[in-house]
């Protein structure tokens, strides 16, 4: 507790103390090494009666600095907040399976890509929700006979506008299109070799090496990320033992990811958040075990503090705060983590 808070609290007198039994609890700092945070579970000031959420699937920050949330609550599929948690606006009612949410700056204009896993479609919209492009199930791949087999969970957009769609709840292919939505190729899918995927839940363009961007794809049930060239050639596996990682999110030199749950405690709200440095070494787990390496191999990771239930995505803003969207977690609004400096 810092001095200012102490003075404030003192002024409350006895009544305040009685009403706030947690006043003197140790302040919890989450995470490890240089990635440590304070947690605010009351960040959202949205009114649950007017603007409810269901699963909070993904979040992005737009060019105005505002935080956008995608939920499969069709009363308001997209909620737009300022960084302080004030709800500014909402839109969208036609995305019952709203899941993947990617923002791309297209020649100075923000555009959004929504993966709807009930509609079996990827929808490109303007920042205020006007539909610009719809990608149906990828017949061109020769891998699908009907829309239902295709359950897209995520998109990533390359600098040239190419669209990569992860069919994470379908057949685990990554399908590459040009910016106009014309099919280029597909890769991934399921199989025994390392280049294959199992629950390809997320995809991102790793721009940490500016000379040579690559793709990082989630293979969630294998507790791993897999790296590919932009043309879909497999490069390497980044093993994350114990962690059901969701999509990778790059910010600065770091890769952040929500971990839906721990392998050691399945379907018991055992999620946390993991942070990898530019060498893809885990440096911090928020609500999770202190990262350790034994003979160069990452030790199994697991939840240690039940501060999250099933985190599904992280959004890192321009001030290094992290917002956490959660799936199937009692319809909670996103939480916010502020860095401890």
């Amino acid at each position: 507790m810092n001095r200012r808070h102490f003075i404030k609290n003192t002024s409350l007198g006895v009544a305040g103390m009685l009403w706030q039994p947690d006043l003197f609890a140790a302040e919890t700092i989450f995470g490890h090494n240089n990635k440590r945070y304070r947690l605010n579970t009351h960040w959202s000031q949205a009114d649950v009666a007017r603007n409810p959420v269901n699963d909070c699937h993904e979040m992005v920050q737009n060019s105005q600095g505002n935080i956008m949330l995608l939920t499969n609550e069709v009363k308001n599929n997209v909620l737009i907040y300022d960084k302080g948690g004030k709800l500014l606006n909402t839109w969208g009612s036609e995305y019952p399976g709203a899941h993947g949410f990617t923002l791309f700056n297209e020649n100075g204009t923000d555009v959004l890509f929504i993966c709807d896993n009930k509609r079996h479609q990827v929808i490109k919209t303007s920042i205020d929700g006007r539909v610009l492009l719809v990608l149906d199930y990828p017949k061109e791949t020769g891998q699908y006979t009907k829309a239902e087999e295709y359950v897209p969970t995520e998109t990533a957009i390359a600098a040239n506008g190419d669209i990569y769609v992860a069919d994470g709840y379908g057949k685990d292919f990554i399908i590459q299109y040009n910016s106009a939505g014309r099919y280029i190729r597909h890769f991934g899918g399921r199989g025994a070799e390392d280049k294959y995927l199992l629950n390809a839940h997320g995809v991102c363009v790793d721009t940490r090496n500016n000379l040579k961007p690559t793709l990082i794809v989630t293979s969630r049930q294998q507790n791993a990320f897999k790296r590919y060239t932009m043309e879909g050639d497999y490069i390497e596996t980044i093993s994350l033992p114990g962690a059901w990682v969701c999509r990778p999110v790059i910010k600065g030199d770091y890769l952040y990811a929500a971990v839906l749950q721990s392998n050691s405690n399945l379907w018991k709200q055992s999620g946390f958040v993991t942070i990898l440095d530019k060498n893809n070494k885990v440096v911090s787990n928020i609500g999770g075990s202190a990262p350790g390496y034994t003979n160069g191999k990452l030790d199994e990771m697991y939840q240690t503090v039940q501060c999250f239930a099933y985190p599904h995505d992280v959004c890192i803003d321009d001030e290094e705060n992290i917002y956490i969207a959660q799936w199937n977690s009692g319809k909670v609004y996103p939480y916010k983590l502020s860095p401890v400096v």
Partner: protein
Amino acid sequence: MMAKYIVCLFLFFTNGLVHAQDTFRLAPPLLRYKSEFFSKPMEVTLLFAQTGTAIRYTLNGNEPSENDTIYKAPLTINNHLTTVKAKAFGYGFLPSETVSATFVKDGYTIISATPTPPNPKYPGNGSMALFDKEGGVANVNSPLWLGYQKDTVAITVYLQRKQTISSILLSMLQDHSARVFLPQQVSVYYFDERANKFKSCFNQTNPASAVTNGSITKNYIISLSKKVKTGILKVVMVPVQSLPEKHPGHGTPGWLFIDEIKVY
């Protein structure tokens, strides 16, 4: 006075809103071991990499409290039916749930245990699955389980030599959300050489169980009221035929999962 009151209220409000601290529960520590079955003394490891916390454990079956021993190094298990219970404690956190495992020492040597063919979805791991000293993994997806639904399960157990038998242990899984229940009926028959036929030595019907959460291994211990001398036993189990009323799958058949048999 009024102004002061309003300021006070205002401060309380902002304070409550902005600085309310959540008190979080610790997650359970990880309990790691090769198998719940052992013949030589074996090691059990507990893991919980969270600064400012400690794992406390008991070996007497009691719920661990803040006064119990702090875990520092792997535990060595020597005794049959030792139960390790562990829990994480830390200042500023609510204590974790308890994790627990019971370790079972080998009984008489079994040379063969032939079960009714299991459901193809849960075939176990080979012909020695029921006496390979592997198992006790509280997870439906562990490949070590033999799974049955509806059909009566009969397992014929051949010991290395004739023995005087007082009890039998069946290692089973209970995971009600996955529809895995303990059997509704268990009977045991022993082969009487002189009469040249199987004779009943145990029969128990279990009442419908309360529906619980979580996946746990259960040692179903059969104590024979009268010791029998034999080299061959037959264990017959009836899976739950109709899930209890409180279960979402009420009326449909449950599963029975078994991975090991011990004879003492």
